[in-house]
C-alpha cells in the first residue's frame, strides 16, 4: 500500500526520521494534555510544533516548514507566553480539573482515537493510493508557491491581508484596557 518517499536507499532513513519526529510530536502533545503548569504546557507545545515542521520537511513542503517555525513556534507561541505572563500573578498558578472531567475527557479521547484509526485503516484498505508522489528534485517549489499565491489565490491572499489588518486594529482596541472600570 505504501509508495516510496524518495529513492529507495533513503527510505529507511526517511522512516527513521518520520518515527523520530512523530514521537516528538505525539509525546509533546501528551505533555500538553497532562501538564498542569501552563509554562510547561507552552514549552511542550513548542516541541510539538517544531516536530510538525519537521514532518513538513519530509513532505517536501520546505517553505511551509519555515513558515511553521517562524510564525507558529516563533510568533504565535511567544505571543501566548506573553499572554501567560500578563494574565497570571504567579506564572505557575494551576487550576485542576475535577476527577469526573478527567474521566469524561479521557473516554472521549479514547473513543475518538479508536474510531478515527479504525476508519483510516478501513479506508486505506479499500482505496489504495492512486497516484505516486512526486519524486526527485523540486528546485523551484517555492517559486511555484509564490506564483500560485499571487496568481490563482490572489483574492484570498488579499483578503487575508485585510483580515490581518482588522485583527491588528481589533486586538489593539480590545487589549487597550478600560481605565474607567473598578
Amino acid at each position, binding site marked *: 500500500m*505504501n509508495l516510496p518517499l524518495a529513492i529507495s536507499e533513503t527510505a529507511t532513513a526517511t522512516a527513521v526520521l518520520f518515527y523520530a519526529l512523530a514521537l516528538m510530536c505525539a509525546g509533546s502533545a501528551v505533555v500538553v494534555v497532562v501538564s498542569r503548569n501552563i509554562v510547561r504546557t507552552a514549552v511542550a507545545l513548542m516541541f510539538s510544533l517544531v516536530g510538525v515542521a519537521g*514532518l513538513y520537511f519530509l*513532505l517536501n*513542503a520546505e517553505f511551509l516548514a519555515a513558515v511553521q517555525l517562524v510564525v*507558529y513556534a516563533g510568533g504565535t507561541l511567544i505571543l501566548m507566553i506573553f499572554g501567560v505572563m500578563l*494574565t497570571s500573578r504567579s506564572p505557575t498558578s494551576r487550576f485542576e480539573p475535577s476527577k469526573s472531567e478527567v474521566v469524561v475527557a479521557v473516554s472521549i479521547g479514547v473513543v475518538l482515537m479508536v474510531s478515527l484509526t479504525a476508519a483510516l485503516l478501513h479506508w486505506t484498505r479499500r482505496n489504495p493510493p492512486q*497516484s505516486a508522489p512526486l519524486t526527485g528534485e523540486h528546485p523551484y517549489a517555492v517559486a511555484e508557491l509564490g506564483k500560485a499565491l499571487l496568481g490563482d489565490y490572489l483574492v484570498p491572499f488579499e483578503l487575508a491581508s485585510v*483580515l490581518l489588518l482588522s485583527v491588528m486594529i481589533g486586538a489593539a482596541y480590545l487589549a487597550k484596557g478600560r481605565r474607567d472600570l473598578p
Partner: protein
Amino acid sequence: MTIGLTHFLVLAAFLFVCGLMTILLKRNAIGILMGVELVLNAANVNLVAFNYYQHPGSAAHPLLTGQIFAIFIIVLAAAEAAVALAIFLSFYNSFSTIDVERANEMREQG
C-alpha cells in the same frame, strides 16, 4: 519499511485527539487556546500529506493546493490567537483571573 499516507493520518488523528482533550481539560483560557492550535496543526498535517500523496500534480506543474490551504490556516491561526489573547487580557483586566470557570457572568442567576 516505507512511510505512507496512513502514517501521517494516524499521527494527525492523534494530535487532533490530544488537542481536543487539552480543550476539554484546561481551565486556563490560554491552555484552551493551545489546544486549538494543536487541532489546527493536525488539520494542516492532513492537508499537506494529502497534497503530497494523493494530488502531487506533475513534475512540470506541481499542485500546491494543500500547502496553500495550510498557509492560510497558519495565517488565520495567528490572527485568531491575537484576538483571543486580546480578549483574555481584557477579561483579566476585569476579573483578575483567566479561569474560564469564572467567565459565567451571563448565566441564569439563582
